[in-house]
């Protein structure tokens, strides 16, 4: 294991995730706006929003405690750590320091745990309702996530994400029906985890959709910027998991600049296509009632269990 290369990998991956994530957020917004025959925000709007938030003062509720102050930092730290786990451009040499699937998922859970606490901190009804629903959705969706990732682990006989990507590169993925099923499940994971229609609506915090946006309603200024950025990064990471397991071609395995640049260009193309697909998917369905979600989750669980069964009996 080459420490230097690992460091290069970490820096490249981190910088790329941080820089590119807001792009997909605006892109999906743009696609949704176009689907509604609106102009939509400019493609750089999310970056501008983040800069604007950083320039604003931070408002804390008089009821809130240090949980409110620590949460954005914990959140960002957890997601930054998690972004070491999903190679987007170049797969690092095998190492046991990073890449454990379960650790990756639980880093996301750590972020969510603190976000839910912060939702309760100010004593506002919005925040409480958001936290309560977010945790309910998290809890009911967790079996799906774990089984999907177990299916991935089964398929490539490893619990390490970079190793899975390497396995995907070496095999012909598209002719494998299992991978297509897994891809469908991961797509659902992206939708749920980034709080999108039909589970939640990222545009609003009004009554019908009081989940994620309601939970962070009390956040402002730099804290809100950190939370927005980490949500965007989480979405990119999950998109990366989907892209690099279903269509990994072009993912660099050596650390030469041309290979990485080629991989970067190709990843951007693939991710833009995926973002457009997410936008279209969101536009094409209506928000579910909260208590209809278990049905959707049961469907996703069914899909992922079928995948595992095919793998086991094959």
């Amino acid at each position: 294991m080459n420490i230097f290369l690992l460091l290069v990998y970490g820096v490249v991956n981190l910088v790329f995730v941080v820089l590119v994530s807001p792009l997909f957020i605006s892109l999906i917004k743009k696609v949704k706006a176009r689907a509604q025959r609106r102009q939509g925000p400019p493609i750089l709007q999310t970056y501008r929003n983040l800069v604007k938030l950083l320039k604003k003062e931070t408002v804390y509720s008089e009821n809130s405690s240090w949980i409110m102050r620590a949460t954005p930092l914990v959140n960002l730290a957890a997601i930054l750590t998690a972004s070491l786990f999903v190679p987007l451009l170049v797969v690092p040499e095998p190492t046991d320091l990073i890449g454990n699937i379960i650790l990756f998922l639980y880093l996301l859970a750590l972020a969510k745990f603190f976000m839910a606490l912060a939702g309760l901190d100010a004593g506002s009804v919005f925040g409480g309702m958001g936290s309560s629903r977010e945790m309910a959705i998290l809890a009911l969706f967790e079996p799906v996530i774990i089984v999907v990732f177990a299916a991935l682990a089964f398929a490539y006989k490893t619990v390490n994400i970079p190793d899975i990507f390497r396995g995907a590169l070496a095999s012909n993925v598209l002719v494998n029906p299992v991978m297509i099923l897994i891809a469908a499940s991961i797509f659902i994971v992206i939708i749920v985890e980034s709080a999108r229609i039909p589970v939640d609506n990222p545009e609003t915090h009004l009554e019908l959709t009081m989940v994620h946006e309601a939970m962070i309603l009390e956040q402002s200024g730099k804290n809100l910027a950190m939370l927005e950025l980490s949500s965007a990064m989480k979405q990119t990471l999950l998109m990366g998991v989907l892209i690099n397991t279903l269509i990994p071609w072009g993912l660099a395995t050596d650390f030469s600049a041309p290979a990485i640049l080629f991989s970067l260009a190709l990843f951007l193309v693939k991710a833009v296509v995926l973002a457009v697909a997410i936008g279209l998917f969101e536009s094409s369905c209506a928000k579910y009632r909260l208590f209809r979600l278990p049905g959707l989750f049961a469907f996703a669980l069914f899909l992922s269990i079928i995948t595992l069964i095919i793998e086991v009996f094959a």
Partner: protein
Amino acid sequence: MLQALFPYSVALFFVGSILPLLADKPNESKLLRQAALACTAVASLLILALSIETIFSSQIYNLLIYQITPQFQFSFQIDKLAAYFLGLVTVVSIAVSIYSFQYIEHYSDERRKNLTVSLMGCFILSMILVIASFSMFSFLFFWELMALFSFLLVMVDHEKKETRKAGMFYFVMTHLSTLFLLFAFLFIYVQTGTLNILAVRADPLITSIAFVFLFLGFGIKAGIIPFHKWLPYAHSTSRSNISALMSGVMIKVAIYGLVRYILLLPLQTWWGMLILSMGTVTAVLGVIYALKEHDIKRLLAYHSIENIGIILIGVGLYIIFTLSGLQAVAFLALAGALFHTLNHAIFKSLLFMASGSLVNATGTRNIEEMGGLIKRMPKTALLFLIGAVSISALPPFNGFVSELMIFQAFMQSFALANPFLELLLIIALAIFALVSALAAACFVKAFGITFLALPRSHEAKEAKEPPKLMLLGPAVLALMCALLGVFSTQIFSLFGYTLPLPNMLFIGVVLAGFYAFAFLAMREVANRKERIAETWGCGILSQNAKMAYTASGFSEPIVTILKGIFRTQKKCEHTFHDPKNAVFKEGKAEIHLLNFFEERLYLPVAEFVQRVSSKIDKIQRGDVDLHVACAFVTIVISLLIIWWFG
């Protein structure tokens, strides 16, 4: 070398237990109590030291005290497994002793305080002796003592009706457990002529019978569902230092028995499947019941049930994988189960002690009446938060590492030969994931409603931080939560095990590094201006505590989604002034939660026993002659049976 100290530390426990009973005057009794608690802590420390030495040196310590016959002897043996569990017991009892120094003074009755301290020493000692027991005879003897001492400790506040109910439940259930163990040991004795489990023949039927008895015996004590009902009662009504010991440690002694005795038998796959299924059901129902609980101590008690389920999942996986020839994965599963046993002991005792401070400060166990305590009891809040993060299995704390081991064992089961077994594992895995996430949801509720937002009662508003030692006790355990998590890889390799786990030290450092980086970057880049304002309430001018979210509100979505399991019945009755039901007169609405196990399982059995015993009762009321006649007939019948079969 340290092992020779074992008898002395046992003696020290005795001294500690007797001291408080010698007290006459109030002022000297406080001193004696503290001396007693110090004895308990020091003796625990000695045993902790000798058990760590035993794990390192792999030397087995033997001690024979008294022998009735070679089969029935009081003999002790400390090997690696026993030493591990001794370490677990003593770590917690040191922290609980420190905590009890000041916790116990919160109550008023002097005699009762003395008695509690004395019994607590006996209780800890009996748990240590159960674990150290070599012969089955002494195991069972101290097992029963452990049950009796803990029963007496539950009954300390016996004038409360709630306590008497809890005590009764506990007394019956714990004796059911002893009874099954007695059956198991007698069965082994009848089969082999010895009390040595290794002598049991590898006949599938015989070993299975022994297994079922042992599993029932240990399972009842560990609180697996459906034998769990005593646990939330006993652990919530007893004093918090006792709850910490019972929930943190005593149910782990049952896990010790399970691992010690069952894993020595020639294993069979269906045992693994049974333990795995029971573990899964226990874990998921435990956490689901915990979600609707608003009594902080009952909530924690239900989480103990959940965690026992998780430990059993690990043990079940071990049996399945061992018999499938997957030794490495099997080892990972068992190591996960054992590590989770230790971790749960630590964070559960921590949480119980912290909740004891909460209950003392607010005078209630209902979290709906708390709120806003993070500002009034910041240190207790931090300790509780560390416990909550650990039990929710979030990295980099210890609960995460042990659950990770079990998750990883599930995910590495690809080489399993039997696909149907694999199917069982997939279902168990999905449920295990659900359990782990529901636990996180439940602790967001427990911490958020208790400590955040505004105080919901006058008592909560006036709450004060507990005295120093009541913080130090849990703080020791909180530190261990962090250390056992972050340094897990190093600790495993220190004891000579290399497991395919991520290096949590690296993750911890990276997390802390990114936290610091984000903090500094924000200070440099962002606007530093801050403003304190009111919580936004859609234009409402003054917010009050009634508007903050409640615990019932928080768990409502999950309770509604899982209403099939909770069996909530909503009843609405209306009466009207006019025949057309237009003018409303009065109405009654109630939500009834069906205690499924209590109403459908426990009470019917209890009624049956009551009926039978009331019939037998008639004979008992008769005079002495009738008794003598009965005894005579019994002897004659026994002799006839012996003559017939002999």
